[in-house]
């Protein structure tokens, strides 16, 4: 601070920063990217460890014996599902009752804003069935949830079978201290959303739940579609990039190790050769997949919606690939039994371990303290740029001595305010119009509703590019040097605040946006070559970022696709994003349309300033 209060040194420092601004920015950018890539390097990461004492030292014996019977129940369930052509409510209720649970149902209905073509649904009606296993001598204050979706086709029958098998086994144990809710939800996330809202009485998409087990402490969602599996995959990413407490992942990993089940995260098995190039790139891929999934802000399993209610939850997926190593249902049952017994031992909610982390493998994690500098290095560029602009603006131009007056302040404000308002209005249009105008679009063009929504969104987005860059001239005449500098200063600070807030909530989204938007913000001026810059600006715009992300994601999953398929996938991702927002309240779509896109338009505006 003494450095800054001494005017001479301050001047020197500022002149250093302004003189070396561009090199420092470039170095920061490189350092940010390098730091991020380094996060996946094993020596730099921490090993996971169980922080919760209540789950750590207690001995738990797993004795679940009835895997075969559970699978038989699963087959019975599948037969009844086929017969009723949906959720076999009656059969499920009867079976759960026979196993000694208190059984309740919940009906729900939901009309989507436009048809979901991926899952082929528009007006959704369904029933959730849940059975509560009352813990002996517990006063219904705490509960755990085990859920399995009732999926169309032949999927997840084994999960329901195992759920019922576990219910029967758990019912005969005396040690439960928390009620256990066994939930079979229809229409995956929509059913789960309806159930959670019914349980917490927060909304009215379904009927309210009739009975409860108190506050839910943790939940697991089970997805299992084959009798024998080769590995179990853990899915953590939830709505808006929320993650469950790391101890839940640790618990899963600990039991996989104990019981001897292969476990993966992002579908990637852990490797031991971190010092080889391929080992490192494997870790990078795993971490990148997590970043991409988290940035998407959508729930990647039925557990994703629990996180909003501060319930730690994860999805466990059974994977059946061509590996030699096979695991049967009894073993998975034992694994779940062990996990539930440890969760049952919890005295407090899971809170000891991290809530913000990235996982380059199931046994290693990167905590918020390690990954935030990567983002910080990118964000610092914006601040440096802002400082540079501020200095340029505050040192009076030479010409004023000659008597050439500046534009009057009113015009200055107008030239600043007009682009701000107009670009935000474009953002609002992008947010509102696609759903509002779907009917009109369907009438006038030969497209389906879903296509109409997506194409309207793209059309508004593109129209936004044409619209605002000359608007300030309407009110304030010719743009001045001073004018674009002020506008850019505002835009850069706006972007810094925006990205900073986003990164605090959802690091991955903030980082990906920073990666593309920060260079734009840093280099754009009216004096750079127009055509080339415009091309770069469009390439680095939010929509193109999304397009590249789609291809990159497919690449990471080792399922590369052609440009044609990629484009279709891109369209469906947009429609899914809009649906996620209106169904589950995902914030990514409004964030992009209402804040990020207008902010990017400001830079577009600066490029065409004259």
């Amino acid at each position, binding site marked *: *601070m003494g450095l*800054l*209060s*001494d*005017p*001479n040194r*301050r001047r020197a420092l500022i002149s250093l920063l302004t003189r070396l601004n561009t090199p420092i920015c470039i170095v920061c950018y490189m350092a940010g990217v390098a730091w991020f890539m380094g996060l996946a390097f094993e020596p730099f990461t921490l090993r996971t460890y169980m922080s919760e004492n209540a789950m750590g030292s207690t001995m738990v014996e797993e004795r679940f014996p009835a895997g075969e019977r559970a699978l038989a129940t699963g087959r019975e369930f599948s037969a009844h599902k086929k017969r009723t052509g949906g959720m076999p409510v009656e059969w499920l209720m009867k079976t759960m009752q*026979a*196993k*000694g649970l*208190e059984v309740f149902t919940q009906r729900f209905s939901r009309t989507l804003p436009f048809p979901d073509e991926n899952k082929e649904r528009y007006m959704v009606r369904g029933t959730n069935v849940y059975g509560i296993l*009352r813990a*002996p*001598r*517990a*006063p*219904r*204050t*705490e509960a755990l949830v085990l859920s399995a979706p009732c999926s169309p086709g032949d999927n997840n029958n084994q999960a329901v079978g195992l759920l019922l098998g576990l219910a*029967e086994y758990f*019912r*005969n144990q*005396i040690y439960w201290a928390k009620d256990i809710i066994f939930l079979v939800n229809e229409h995956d996330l929509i059913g789960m959303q309806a159930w959670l809202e019914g349980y*917490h*009485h*927060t909304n009215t998409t379904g009927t309210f739940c009739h*009975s*409860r087990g*108190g*506050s839910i402490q943790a939940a697991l969602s089970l997805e299992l579609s084959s009798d024998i599996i080769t590995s179990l995959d853990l899915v953590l990413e939830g709505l808006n990039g929320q993650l469950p407490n790391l101890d839940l992942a640790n618990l899963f990993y600990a039991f996989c190790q104990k019981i001897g089940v292969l476990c993966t995260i992002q579908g990637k098995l852990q490797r031991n050769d971190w010092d080889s190039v391929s080992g490192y790139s494997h870790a990078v891929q795993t971490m990148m997949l997590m970043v991409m999934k988290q940035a998407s802000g959508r729930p990647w399993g039925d557990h994703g919606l629990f996180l*909003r*209610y*501060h319930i730690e939850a994860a999805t466990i997926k059974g994977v059946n690939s061509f590996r030699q190593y096979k695991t049967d249902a009894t073993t998975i049952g034992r694994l779940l039994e062990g996990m539930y017994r440890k969760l049952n031992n919890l*005295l*407090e*909610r899971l*809170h*000891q371990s991290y809530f913000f982390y990235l996982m380059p493998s199931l046994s290693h994690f990167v905590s918020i303290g390690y990954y935030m500098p990567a983002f910080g290095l990118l964000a610092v560029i914006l601040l440096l740029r802002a400082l540079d602009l501020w200095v340029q603006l505050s040192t009076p131009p030479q010409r004023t001595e000659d008597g050439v007056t500046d534009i009057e302040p009113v015009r200055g404000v107008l030239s600043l305010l007009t682009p701000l308002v107009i670009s935000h209005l474009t953002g609002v249009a992008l947010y509102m119009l696609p759903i509002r105008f779907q009917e009109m679009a369907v009438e006038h063009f030969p497209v389906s509703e879903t296509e109409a929504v997506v194409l309207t969104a793209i059309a508004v987005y593109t129209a936004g590019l044409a619209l605002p860059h000359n608007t300030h001239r309407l009110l304030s005449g010719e743009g001045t040097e001073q004018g674009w500098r002020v506008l850019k200063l505002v835009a850069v600070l706006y972007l810094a605040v925006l990205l900073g807030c986003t990164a605090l909530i959802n690091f991955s989204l903030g980082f990906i946006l920073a990666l593309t938007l920060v260079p734009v913000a840093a280099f754009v001026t009216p004096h750079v070559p127009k055509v080339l810059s415009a091309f770069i600006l469009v390439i680095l715009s939010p929509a193109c970022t999304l397009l590249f992300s789609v291809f990159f994601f497919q690449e990471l999953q080792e399922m590369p696709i052609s440009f044609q398929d990629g484009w279709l996938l891109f369209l469906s991702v947009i429609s899914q994003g809009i649906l996620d927002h209106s169904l589950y309240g995902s914030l990514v779509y409004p964030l992009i349309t209402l804040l990020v896109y207008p902010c990017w338009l400001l830079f577009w505006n600066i490029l065409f300033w004259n």
Partner: protein
Amino acid sequence: AMAEQKFRVRARALVCVFVCVVMCGCGRDDFQEELVIRPLHSGDIYTSFQFRTLWETDFTRENKVSHYRLFPKSLGQVISKFSVRELHISFTQGYWRTMQWGQPYLPSPPGAELWVWFQDSLTDVDGTWKELTNVLSGIFCASLNFIDSTNTVQPSASFKPLGIGNVTDHRFLRYATLPREIVCTENLTPWKKLLPCGSKAGLAVLLKSEKLFHSSFHSQAVHIRPVCKDDQCKTTSWELRQTLNVVFDLHNSGQGKNEWSLFKMFSRTLTEACPVASSSKIYIDITDNSQGEQFELSPATPLLSQAVVLGDRRTFSVYDLTQQITFGTMRSLNLLIRGKSSDMLRPLLHAERYVAGYGLQTGEIHTLMYNNHPYRSFPVLLLDSVPWYLRLYIHTLTVTSKGKDNKPSYIHYQPSKDRVRPHLLEMLVQLPPNSVTEVTLQFERALLKWTEYTPDPNHGFYVGSSVISSLVPSIVAMDTNNSRERPLFSSFFPSKEESSYFVRVYTEPLLVNLPTPDFSMPYNVICLTCTVVAVGYGSLYNLLTRSFQIEEPSPGLAKRIANIIRKMRGVPPL
């Protein structure tokens, strides 16, 4: 050894009686013990012990009672020292599942509950209450010492005296619950010690903790109240009732019949009654078994008894333990019950409660009260005592039944004071027939001071059960066609004592999370913030508010004088 022990007990009792009768000449006392076993429709078995000690004495008179026979001395001293008129205390582990099990004989909320009526001659009720809870805490090995002004209320209508006496001024009533209290053997042992026979003889030999706590529900209680000595009611006696209710979980995944016996439930059989007991009986509810198809009993008993219990006419098989013949040739009684579960009528009144909403700022308490009576409405008294750290917004109180606003005819609300007293809300609500009445109330979660958090703050904070008291129309009165066994003239007007019965229903307690700081590093946080504030803020404030200029070195004396002269001359200074 058994015989010797029996002999000792008997001898002691005889000596006792002799000494008492000869030397003291104080009031008569009497001890009765009773066990009711009721196979529940869910397949579980409900066992309810009652031990009743009656003593014709007066604890309130001037000269202190000093000689005790059957009545436990520790409680007698408590009554006289703290001017207690009536005392009810219960310890419960688990929640009574009204929908599966029906109404219990003696309801109690999860955790500990204590309510006391004091004599109206008492001046410092609060101080006495504080002392009393501490003493009871010692007697029952429980955390009753955690009862203080922040969880004590004075209900105006819900808890009326159960004994004789006509003082109903609720200034002399104190009610408190500890929903978090965990009940285990250390509470059972002192409770058993209050019995005249301890757990040495009589029904109390069945009370082995390893079995009692291997159950779905466990509740033990002590009730003390003054009762009439005789019909004239000129003098009072004191009644001590010790009750213990246990529900054994007999879930059997197979479809076959359950087979349970005293030995299987308690790992003991009965060999004798308590020698000092005037009556010692086992009742088995066989109402649902009138044709004997649901379950069978062995050994069978010829004694039957009928009673209206909780509005329903029940039939009981009775085993009198004072009769030697009950024990048969084996000289031990091991009741065997074989039976299967069946459906039951929905209980006429039940209730549930939960917290709605998410996040750590606000929430809403929902209380649902179900009236399952097909055509009669009845009023209920709802009592809610909510700790101060949930700040209730009483203006958000809504009571709705069948989608319409249901205005309570009586509301007694006492707002909370932070760290001093809880909210108290009592309402008289009419429940329409066959309906659900929903009471909602919004609240804000307070931020506690950091020393006020419990050692496990992330577990959440408990809110005690709501209490719903009501006179429920009885099933007997509902059954208007039931004239087969009774004379016609007796059934036209419903008889008063049978038309409705008193029920108290407790809802589940709530577990509410409050905004909780991260306690793992308070030290770091304090240090860091202090440093940042001290260093960062001061300097930044300086930078932002001052303008910095390079100071010219101060001129010499000669120059200053020259400048003054130049100024006077109106010439610019040097």
